[in-house]
């Protein structure tokens, strides 16, 4: 791929990227979240069609224009996305051939041949399951292998895997890596996006490090070195974009989890594995880790478990063992959770600011179930002023606000519920530097008032700049705890990439 540039509204996702992969090698693309790795692969596989980017794709020394995913598949380029493209209600053998069915007379499905070939491809990927099984009942590891079997059935030459092991446990990951090495022997080239540097060291023939949409370095097998990769991934110095604050941390522990586990019955694995965290009054505690490491899942499990994981272990809030099995109970216990996806889980976009701001504590502005709109307006005005939300009126629709102001509305909504513990999940994702600074200032004001904050973030500078203490999570397991004075980006990255 030569000088690929791809713009999204307001963002340059890829900036003049050159990617070079040799035939028959396993190439890794590494970089922080949001560096542009997935975007690059979507360009290569035709998900972002020819014309939506600039630059050239060369495959087998020929310039290719992929207008859709079928074009790239017919050249032998198959992508396996993080979100698996399988059909949970259909059987294994049917899944493998959906879209490129084995046909008889052009319109009939040849089931006998389908089943025979399905068995053959399952053998090739080393999966020993009944071809009649429903894919939805299988674990992610097996589903991943079915995707690869599907790719093989499409005569794949170049296999692209976007964080294939992110959702897998250790055994499954190892299996997958072995399979890739074996496929390499059969002449199949692979490009793999991964955060797990141990995997990179184990099987990569070459790697490309991407940061902020640019290629930083390409390394060959001999040159690969974990420290070097991390340094290139993190790269930037922490500039002075974080407002200073004195230590407000007191001794009182406000929230504690003891041997806390959450089991996801759908993925059939522990997404929170023996978590023991403590948050003190007036403290900002960071939860660092890569995407899919289980940070959000931990927050959800504490905040009333809305996704209905199987929880075991205990939560202790203000010295009492509590069972927070609904978000309602968590709110009553003084916990608030500002979602990472404000548009999907946090805000009602088609409603105005005052509605959004008061929705989590309507009791405060109502009298025997009848809403007091004057009170609602007054309270909203107060928060709009406190949080410095830039809007012509409190009756502005939230969808018309900028990202930063939307985020402030979301924070205001939860502050209105007067929590003692505030969980902020990626509070600065997708907002500009100025708005970030304002959010950081709000955080500082809140801890000054004695609130405790859990800050979940993918951005290491943010963690280092804002927190008093940080827990690192990898694959659901708490791998390290640092006082912020002892933490560095490299140390955290090392613990986050097991």
């Amino acid at each position, binding site marked *: 791929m030569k000088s690929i540039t791809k713009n999204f509204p307001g963002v340059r996702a890829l900036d003049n990227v050159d990617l070079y992969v040799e035939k028959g090698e396993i190439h890794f693309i590494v970089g922080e979240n949001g560096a542009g790795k997935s975007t690059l692969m979507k360009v290569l596989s035709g*998900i972002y069609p020819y014309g939506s980017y600039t630059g050239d794709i060369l495959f087998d020394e020929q310039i290719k224009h992929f207008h*859709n*995913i*079928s074009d790239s*598949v017919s050249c032998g380029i198959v992508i396996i*996305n993080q*979100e*698996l*493209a*399988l*059909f*949970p*209600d*259909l059987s294994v053998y*049917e899944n493998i051939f*959906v*879209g*490129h*069915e084995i*046909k008889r007379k052009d*319109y*009939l*499905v040849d*089931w*006998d041949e389908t*089943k*025979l070939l399905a*068995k053959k491809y399952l053998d090739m990927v080393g999966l020993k399951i*009944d*071809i*009649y099984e429903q894919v939805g*009942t299988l674990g992610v590891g097996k589903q991943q292998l079915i995707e690869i079997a599907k790719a093989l059935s499409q005569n794949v030459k170049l296999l692209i895997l976007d964080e294939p092991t992110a959702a897998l446990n250790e055994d499954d990951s190892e299996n997958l890596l072995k399979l890739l090495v074996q496929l390499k022997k059969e002449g199949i080239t692979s490009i793999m996006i991964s955060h797990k540097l141990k995997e990179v060291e184990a099987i990569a023939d070459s790697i490309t490090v991407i940061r902020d949409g640019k290629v930083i370095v390409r390394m060959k097998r001999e040159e690969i070195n974990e420290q070097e990769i991390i340094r290139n991934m993190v790269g930037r110095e922490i500039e002075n974009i974080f407002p200073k604050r004195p230590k407000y941390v007191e001794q009182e522990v406000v929230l504690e989890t*003891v*041997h806390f586990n959450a089991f996801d019955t759908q993925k059939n694995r522990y997404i929170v594995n023996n978590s023991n965290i403590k948050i003190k009054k007036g403290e900002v505690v960071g939860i660092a880790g890569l995407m899919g490491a289980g940070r959000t899942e931990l927050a959800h499990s504490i905040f009333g478990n809305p996704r209905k994981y199987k929880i*075991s*272990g*205990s939560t*202790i809030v203000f010295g009492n*063992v509590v069972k927070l099995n609904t978000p309602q109970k968590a709110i009553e216990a003084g916990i608030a959770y500002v979602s990472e996806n404000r548009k999907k889980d946090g805000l009602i976009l088609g409603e105005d600011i005052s509605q959004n701001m008061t929705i989590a504590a309507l009791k405060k502005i109502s009298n025997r179930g009848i809403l007091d709109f004057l009170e609602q307006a007054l309270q909203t005005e107060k928060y709009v002023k406190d949080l410095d939300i830039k809007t012509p009126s409190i009756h502005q629709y939230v969808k018309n606000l900028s990202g930063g102001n939307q985020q402030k509305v979301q924070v205001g909504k939860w502050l209105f519920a007067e929590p003692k513990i505030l969980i902020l999940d990626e509070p600065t994702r997708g907002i500009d530097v100025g708005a970030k600074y304002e959010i950081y200032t709000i955080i500082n004001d809140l801890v000054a008032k004695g609130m405790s904050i859990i800050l979940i973030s993918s951005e290491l500078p943010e963690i280092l700049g804002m927190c008093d203490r940080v827990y690192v999570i990898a694959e659901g397991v708490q791998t390290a705890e640092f006082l912020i004075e002892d933490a560095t980006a490299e140390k955290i990255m090392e613990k986050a990439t097991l």
Partner: protein
Amino acid sequence: MKQIDPIRKYILTLLSIFRTNIRDYGMYIALIVIFVIFSILTNGVFLRPMNFTNLLNQTAYVSVLAVGMTLVIVTRQIDLSVGYLGAFLGAFVVVGVEITYPEFLTKLTNGMMSAQLMSILSIIIAIILALVITVGVGALKGFLVAKVKVPSFVVTLAGMFVFKGLLMIKTNNRTIPTSNTFFDKIGVGYLSNFKIGNMDGLTLILGSLLMLLVIVFSFIKREKNVRLGIKVEPVSLFATKVFFLLGIIFLLMYTLGSFRGISYLLMITVVVVGIYHYFTTQTVLGRRIYAVGGNPEAAELSGISVEKIIIIVFVSMGVLSLISGVMYASMLQNTSPNHGPFWELYAIAAAYIGGTSANGGVGKVVNAVVGSIVIMSLKNGMALAGVNANIEPIVLGTVLLLAVLFDIYTRNVRAVDLVGMFYAKNKLQDEYKEAKLAYIAAKKELELATANNESNVIELEYQFTSAQGEYNRIKDRIRSAKEEDFLNELR
């Protein structure tokens, strides 16, 4: 370890199959229960040959709609317009056959055409024109839903109003009786008059043929699976299945044969269902409908055009509405502005009772027909038993709700192997007891400590969670045990 005795093993295996596939069998059980209840309430009249034949005839128009509706729901859409569309098309055909085309043909040939030829030609012209209309309407609905992205609920709700109006215009707000003998035959005729003894000869011949085919194909399929290296069930189970199927066919053959045999309505239903069953299980296009319903994004990524599939599904629904409308008009031998209401709702209910998933991607057309029979049995049975007619919709609604509840509760049913569980229980019984006792003890201790507000609550909480975990693990091991796991130990 001791081997399980064969009779017990056979029963446990049957039960395992039953429990594993409870979702598929649910509506058959419902049907049997309904049949038994009404047979008792009506002193056996309900299942007498005449009533049973009538029941199947009454079900025909709903079955045909339900088949199409299943595919609509499988693709995550809905079609509310099919009732009045069907009734309108019925009126279109009847008015055409009775008035418009005979007049037209008389004029064209100066009255030289024989009456018989004219009535046949009228039917053909009417049906062809109706087909053109309905394909156009279906394509338009599909286009609006798939390309313009108007929710199908809105598109078809609008269609429902429009077709209701067109029906009233076409019938001129009067009931128009049919007099065309060929047309009437569709709704009230039977395939043959040929008798063997007291029975209908054709039914006996077809039934026997079907039984023969079942036997032959069961063996061929089993043989093929063995050849492909796919696991087959033990002989005892295989025989049970075949005999069960043969028994059902025999009963059906006997019941229908004792009255007048196979009606045209039944024949059309069977042909339509047969074609759709084949279409949805054996053709590329049919399977893609399920892929689109199960995961539209993945389907698009697999190179399937979701828009095209949705348009095809709505066109098919339109064609089936025409068949259904013609069946209904000829069954009642008239067309009327009162035809049409609730048809679409019966069809939707039938699809849901037949286990079609409201989330898309799951649903068998054959099961939708069974769902239709469930609904029409309730209607027919309650009328026969003299139940107050006002009660009927209440019962119908309740049954629909129960069916969907059943579906939700059995959604996560995992495969069980009771034989394996039997061995595992024997093997793990000591560990199981121990874990259970530990769990109960830890629970009690924790409760006591919590009640007395003791200081070590947190510690006990942890003990309780680990005891619970251990207990669950053993239960799960027993639950997921398979017979194969014990083969070595049994030897």
